[in-house]
């Protein structure tokens, strides 16, 4: 039976799922001059951390939003820094001469306009926004893989015996998602075996958006006995 106290207890897992859902509501856009139709998360991170200035031999330039839910989700999902951490990082680069300050714009519409007219520009906007004049890049976790949007998520049950003993932790799982969006296979990569069993049981009920082929996805679920 699902314990009502599971909801606050697995808040970290919910947060992860929420951010993933928000990241799934984003789209990464690029100027047509960019020689790519997809981009890996690693390359996207390198570009926005000013570590990489080209993609498939074409020059690229990151464009960011000043604020907003999409901005926060993009940073958390793909860059791994908060807004203030990223601004501090950029200032360190600028004032040591390592790089330029990227462009920050006020709205998604401004980002689309700028990306459309600026050679090499790459940005991110809400997935519902019209993106005339730019190309949409699909984001992949690794070369050849495809990002899948999570449509339905079931919360895992927190085993009572472990919660009482205040045993928590993070479980890492590798999912195989079918083209229809169902989770066909779950492999445990790490974590407490009892928590992993509960997590695996829940993720088998997850449903993803349809995709071109089977997709391998790594997910992490956190169990916090104090929440």
């Amino acid at each position, binding site marked *: 039976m699902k314990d009502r106290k599971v909801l606050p207890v697995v808040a970290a897992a919910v947060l992860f799922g929420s951010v993933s859902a928000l990241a799934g509501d984003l789209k990464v856009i690029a100027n047509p001059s960019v020689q790519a139709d997809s981009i890996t998360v690693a390359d996207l991170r*390198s570009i926005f951390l000013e*570590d990489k*200035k080209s993609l498939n031999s074409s020059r690229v330039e990151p464009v960011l939003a000043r604020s907003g839910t999409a901005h926060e989700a993009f940073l958390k999902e793909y860059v791994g820094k908060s807004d203030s951490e990223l601004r501090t990082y950029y*200032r360190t680069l*600028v004032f040591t*001469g390592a790089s*330029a300050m990227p462009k920050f714009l006020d709205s998604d519409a401004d980002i689309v306009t700028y990306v459309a007219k600026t050679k090499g520009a790459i940005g991110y906007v809400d997935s519902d926004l019209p993106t005339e004049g730019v190309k949409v890049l699909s984001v992949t976790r690794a070369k050849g893989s495809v990002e899948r949007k999570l449509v339905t998520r079931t919360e895992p049950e927190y085993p009572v015996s472990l919660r009482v003993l205040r045993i928590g932790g993070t479980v890492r799982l590798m999912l195989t998602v079918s083209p229809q969006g169902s989770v066909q296979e779950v492999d445990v990569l790490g974590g407490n075996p009892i928590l992993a069993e509960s997590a695996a049981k829940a993720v088998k009920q997850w449903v993803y958006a349809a995709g071109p082929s089977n997709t391998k996805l790594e997910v992490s679920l956190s169990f916090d006995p104090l929440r």
Partner: protein
Amino acid sequence: MLRRFFGLASMFFLAGQITLQSQEFKLFDRTVQFHGFASQGFIYTDQNNWLTMHSSKGSGAFTDFGGNVSVQITDKFRVGAQVYDRNLGNLGEWHPTLDWAFADYRFKTWFGIRGGKVKTVLGLYNDTQDLDFLHAFALLPQSVYPTDLRDTSIGHLGGDFYGTISPKPRLGAISYTAYAGHENDNIYSGFTYVSSAYGVNRPHYTGLQYGGDLRWNTPLHGLLIGVSRRNEYSGSKSTFRNPLVSPLTLPYSTETYPLWTNQFYAEYERGRLQIDSEYRRYLYHLVVNRNLLATTVNVHSWYVAGAYRVSKRFTVGSYYSRYAVRRMSTGPIAGLFPDQTDTSLPANHIYDKVISARVDLNSFWNAKVEGHFMDGYGASTFPNGFYPQLNPLGYKPNTNALVLKTSVNF
């Protein structure tokens, strides 16, 4: 002075008006960016005068500013330059310097080169120590980043190899820097200033410098660990006049070999919390006028710092910093400089407990208030904040300091 005040006031006003977007213009179809920063501080100490200021009466001689211009020529090639000026008590004295000016070619993420006047990578903050707006604290731990001795390690005229290697994302990423060049100490620095207390006329220390830095962004998100090493061979030529040695003005020359720094560091950032710790070992052997005086200085220093971002605009922090110096001399005039070997004595250490608060008034303007509670004064021919010229009646064992600082950047 009045012009500098209006210049600084204008910079503060300008920063209040500019939003966070690049200040830029087009030149031959390339975007040229320019940025600037400025800070103004005030220090009051209850006992000894500190950092070459008359701080026991309260001093605002704590100002710096800089500006840079840079352009990305191609996706791999970048050029830029930054000018820096400061006045810290009796140091700097408003003599602007070329902070950095280099050309940078990044062949691959794992290999790039830069050449020109380059900031030296040493520990977590050597190359960013002047950029007040990047740090939670008004003064970085002086045991490792002495602001009065900034010029001895801030940069070199030469070249760097650098890059980031990440063979497997699950192993993290390793960044490296290797450099070599010519070091040219500013004659308005602390080491030159303390030399003048012994009758030496502004010696200009220059020499070969080389070293490297290796840092690992570990698989544990937010944890960075690293090590830096710096070697230097420096010398100087000047004159000196000390009645205890001779009534005449004599030539003065030094050779410093070996001179090296080892620095180990770690940083952990998780959410709103940041914890830093560094250990530095600094050793040099200096010979004056071919063994008239030979001095070996051995410094061990470390700190542990924590900062917590309470809200978007408010950060609190604290650190504990320890500095200990041992100095031994030989030669005909060594008797003028008694050995310093007992680090339990206040003259041979500085233990600093610090609490600090930072308020970000907007994205470009911040203000800080900080308290320092120092045990010891570490007075030596190798200074660390306390100078005989500003404390002619001798030193008190402890010093408490209030530091106020505000800075802007755009």
